[in-house]
């Protein structure tokens, strides 16, 4: 039972990373292979503040959120000056820079990282895995809620417009620069928040946990599930997050399997599993229409009833 809870917490943390990454990659269409950087920044600052300054877990959450968001500001500012392909390369480089900083700066514990991160507690009750799961799900709910809310705002629809055509977006007065930066900030901040939970959950943080491969894994989950949609981000995190646990052999060849899935997906179903226009989504839509149609007694405009007999 406890093992399943541990897997569930891990998947929920991945889900936060994927849903938040979707704000930048899915909504604004900017390539970002650095999501684990912001996750790592959140985890490291949470670890530093709780071990060295004995700050409560509950304080480290907003701190990680803000610091990771500030780091996102930097990446957002860089993104304004770069074309998409250069941006992708830059974000890859960012992984190595930040991991090197974790590894060589004494403040972050060097190569051994930071260990003995205290378990959070609430009202004298020390966290069990079940409590971690509750907090992880609450954080996921906050991330999903924010993401879903954004889609319905003017800001959100402007991000879609920027993704579809940046020049046209500028021509109708959308403030492209500040909106892009803000999207990066939000995306990074939620990843940082996930990091603040990851640190006490694992009780240690090491530089190796936040490298380039983790960024690729998170992006693979998003593409697999379906770019641009929250349901896609969630299903990607759940399936690719549990697969290695369900099948031991996948765990041994995790990156190979993910790479293969990614290749096949991009070749045959670039919309992802549940993205807009994917096979499954179109199938469900067709089923939905055919189920609704027979109820209408009136024939269509052309005199032919469109319902299935």
């Amino acid at each position, binding site marked *: 039972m406890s093992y399943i809870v541990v897997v569930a917490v891990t998947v929920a943390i991945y889900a936060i990373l994927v849903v938040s990454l979707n704000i930048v990659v899915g909504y604004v269409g900017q390539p970002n292979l650095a999501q684990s950087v912001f996750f790592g920044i959140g985890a490291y600052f949470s670890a530093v503040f709780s071990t060295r300054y004995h700050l409560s877990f509950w304080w480290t959450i907003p701190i990680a959120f803000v610091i990771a968001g500030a780091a996102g500001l930097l990446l957002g500012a860089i993104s304004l000056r770069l074309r998409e392909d250069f941006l992708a390369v830059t974000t890859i480089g960012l992984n190595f820079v930040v991991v090197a900083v974790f590894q060589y700066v004494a403040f972050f514990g060097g190569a051994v990282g930071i260990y003995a991160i205290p378990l959070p507690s609430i009202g004298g009750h020390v966290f069990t895995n079940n409590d971690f799961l509750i907090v992880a799900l609450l954080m996921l709910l906050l991330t999903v809620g924010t993401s879903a*809310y954004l889609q*319905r*705002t*003017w*800001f959100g*629809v*402007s991000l*879609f*417009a920027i*993704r*579809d*055509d940046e*020049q*046209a*977006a*500028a*021509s*109708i*007065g*959308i*403030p*492209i620069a500040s909106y892009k930066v803000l999207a990066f900030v939000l995306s990074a901040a939620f990843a940082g928040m996930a990091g603040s939970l990851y640190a006490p959950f694992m009780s240690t943080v090491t530089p190796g946990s936040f490298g380039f491969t983790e960024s690729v894994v998170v992006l693979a989950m998003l593409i697999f599930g379906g770019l*641009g949609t929250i349901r896609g981000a969630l299903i990607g995190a759940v399936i690719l997050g549990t697969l290695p646990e369900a099948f031991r052999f996948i765990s041994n060849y995790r990156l190979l399997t993910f790479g293969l899935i990614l290749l096949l997906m991009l070749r045959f179903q670039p919309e992802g599993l549940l993205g*807009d226009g994917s096979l499954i989504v179109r199938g469900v839509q067709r089923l939905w229409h055919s189920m609704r149609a027979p109820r209408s007694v009136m024939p269509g405009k052309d005199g032919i009833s469109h319902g299935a007999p």
Partner: protein
Amino acid sequence: MALLEIDHLTVRFGGVTALDDVNFTVDEGEFVSIIGPNGAGKTTLFNVIAGVRQPTAGKVRLRGRDMHGAHPARMSHLGVRRSFQVARPFRSLTVNENVRVAAAGQRILYSQRAFALRGRDRVLNATVESLLAQTGLSGSRRRRAGELNIGELRRLEIARALAGNPDVLLLDEPAAGIGADGLRPLVGLIKAVSAGGLTVLLVEHYVGLALSLSDRVVVLDEGHLIANAAPDEVRHDERVISAYLGKSASARDEERSSTSAETQPSDLPGPQSPPLEPPSTKRAP
């Protein structure tokens, strides 16, 4: 004071001079067409006015204000909105959303309201409603812009540009790529917009269309302004004829445009008169 002043504008790309000391003004409510053969500098001129490109020398003034350094979003806020030569819709958004986000403008997108739910603005909804009706897109409002045909896309671009309630509308070859069927509603729309008092600047390859719609025509040739006059004068201007149309083509075109301008000045030619030629066939004089 003229609404828009193009003041000794020069644009160079490396060694190529795309625009050379171009000078003209556009008054409020005027309909001015910019014509010229391929490579004359029409689109470059448009891009400078829209803030996409900065001039090498010279100025663009809007209501007397120097627009140097203004980027496209700023020009849009100042009242200059455009359509594109190749349609650039927001493909994943519905027709309705395309126009709505364009109507939001500075008032909403630069304020806290950008983070409010976008369904609830009555004034805005009314504006969008009337624009969709005016452009004949009401029936397509729920369709994704990526599914529209080229004629509908052209009208969507105009609706989107009008949504900002601009002072100047820049139309970059709105008739490009659409057949005779699509041309009729498009021309009707452009005429209605202009008749409503809006200042329109049109770049058009299709000379007959430009001459029949405009109050004044500016002719560019290899970056130089070679004529700036009423359509009738331009039609008979020797420099324009030799530079742009070539003798034989000019004779044909004159015949055609005079038929459309004189017999049915307020409408497209009927089925008995020569049909307006689709612009694609008119490309290379």
